[in-house]
């Protein structure tokens, strides 16, 4: 991938394999993500994307292979890796306000407890354009707004690596600038990995594409050709590229991607 301009790579995977209940989910996955890379991790649902994220986060232990995150064991990197989970996983009925969610990002980290906490939270909320909602309960937010709050929570960690799981799933509204501009800006400061099953939603600004369907295919120049996608999805796909955005239609007639 792109040149590691300073320090160790954000992520190094070598021959990673993992089976869940006897079914192989990841096979021989090797990947290096540099300190300022901006990578899209694509693949069909069930292709192992979330499992790969869990391996990088130290929540799942691979059966085979070597994992290094920020130069050490994944668990040792905790607090320095920002993680934005999928929005739909959340119970929006939980009694909590936006600023309390964001404050969570400071809890376990080396930054904890400083007088800078409130400023950091306010700054992160401003960056995702959610300052006006700081005191609202999360139950009053749209999916897209909650997504931004979760991004702010990851940002107060001041991470060196940011992992976003399906951030395109609920970008329903156009308030202010798009989050894609934000991701692009963040990738100047840290390594950014955007995970999605939706090829059409991935910004053309990403600097690399990796396709995961149990095995990983890395494409440094994000050349989204039909061959690349077919290799990843394991079925014929048509790539309709009208500049930007891309749309991909499956060949099964009865379903649309």
């Amino acid at each position: 991938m792109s040149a590691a301009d300073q320090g160790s790579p954000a992520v190094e995977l070598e021959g990673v394999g993992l089976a869940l209940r006897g079914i192989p989910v990841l096979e021989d996955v090797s990947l290096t993500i540099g300190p300022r890379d901006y990578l899209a991790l694509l693949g069909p649902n069930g292709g192992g994307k979330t499992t790969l994220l869990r391996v990088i986060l130290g929540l799942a232990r691979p059966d085979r292979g070597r994992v290094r995150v920020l130069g050490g064991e994944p668990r040792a990197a905790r607090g320095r890796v920002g993680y934005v989970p999928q929005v739909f996983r959340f119970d929006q009925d939980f009694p909590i306000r936006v600023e309390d969610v964001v404050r969570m990002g400071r809890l376990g980290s080396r930054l904890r407890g400083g007088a800078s906490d409130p400023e950091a939270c306010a700054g992160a909320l401003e960056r995702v354009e959610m300052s006006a909602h700081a005191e609202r309960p999360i139950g009053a937010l749209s999916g897209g707004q909650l997504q931004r709050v979760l991004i702010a929570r990851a940002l107060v960690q001041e991470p060196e690596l940011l992992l976003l799981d399906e951030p395109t799933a609920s970008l329903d509204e156009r308030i202010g600038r798009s989050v894609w501009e934000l991701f692009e800006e963040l990738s100047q400061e840290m390594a950014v990995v955007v995970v999605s099953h939706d090829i059409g939603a991935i910004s053309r600004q990403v600097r690399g594409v990796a396709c995961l369907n149990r095995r990983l295919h890395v494409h440094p120049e994000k050349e989204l050709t039909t061959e690349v996608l077919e290799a990843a999805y394991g079925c014929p796909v048509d790539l309709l590229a009208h500049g930007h955005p891309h749309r991909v239609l499956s060949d099964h007639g009865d379903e649309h991607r």
Partner: protein
Amino acid sequence: MIDALDQPFLQRALLAGLLASVACGLIGSYVVAKRISSLTGGLAHAAFGGVGLGYLAGFPPLLGATGFALLAALLVGEAQRRLGEALETWVSIVWSVGMALGIVFVALAPGYAPDLMSYLFGSLLFVSWETIAWIVALDVLILGSVAVFHPLFEAVCFDEEYAEVAGVRAEAVFLGLMGLTALAIVTVIRVVGVILAIALLTLPATTARHWTSSLRGMMALSVALSAASIVGGLVLAQALGTAFGVSVPPGPLAILLAAVVYAASSGLQRRTAATPPPG
């Protein structure tokens, strides 16, 4: 009623009820927010095993209840992380084995255990000063822990996986919270008993959730609501005694009052649902 407060047993009942409300309101808010009421019910029933052991071995039953509830918290809390779908079964095993042990222990104990029913359904009017001292100790522990660790408890209740990733020792924090839940149950055993304990932990907190959108707000409101239910139960029990000469225990009356308040609150909230609750 004011005159009745001259009677020491009523003073103790009132004091025990108010003190138990503090533990219930604080911990019940976490239980409701994280939706772990069935786990909590398991702890409450398992505590009965300790009551029985107390009778058999000759130490205070409430001490045994504390030990058993804490052990159950450990068993259920660990299982919660590992078992997934099998958790429900595991909770019902802990639940029923605890109860069964209690009954077996009591049967083995020499003589008759006269106030066994009082541990099942509470006996607020017969609370001793020793029990009140024990509730005070547990209250202090719970209040202190919540004051210090609330941000961690909140994070683990809201999003355990993220808390872990952010560097919190989520497993330890969750087990700590389960331990405090066990202690909160012990505070209400003399008030409403092991069988009704879960109601006093969840009903006021669920009602409070209708009107506030933060855990802190829920805690404050549900402490007040539990206290009001228990005081109401005592007043009602006295009034029924004076008016009709019947003797109805105040604990179950308190639960019924809490349920009525919950129903009324639900109705009222549905009417005002057009406006979201304040932060």
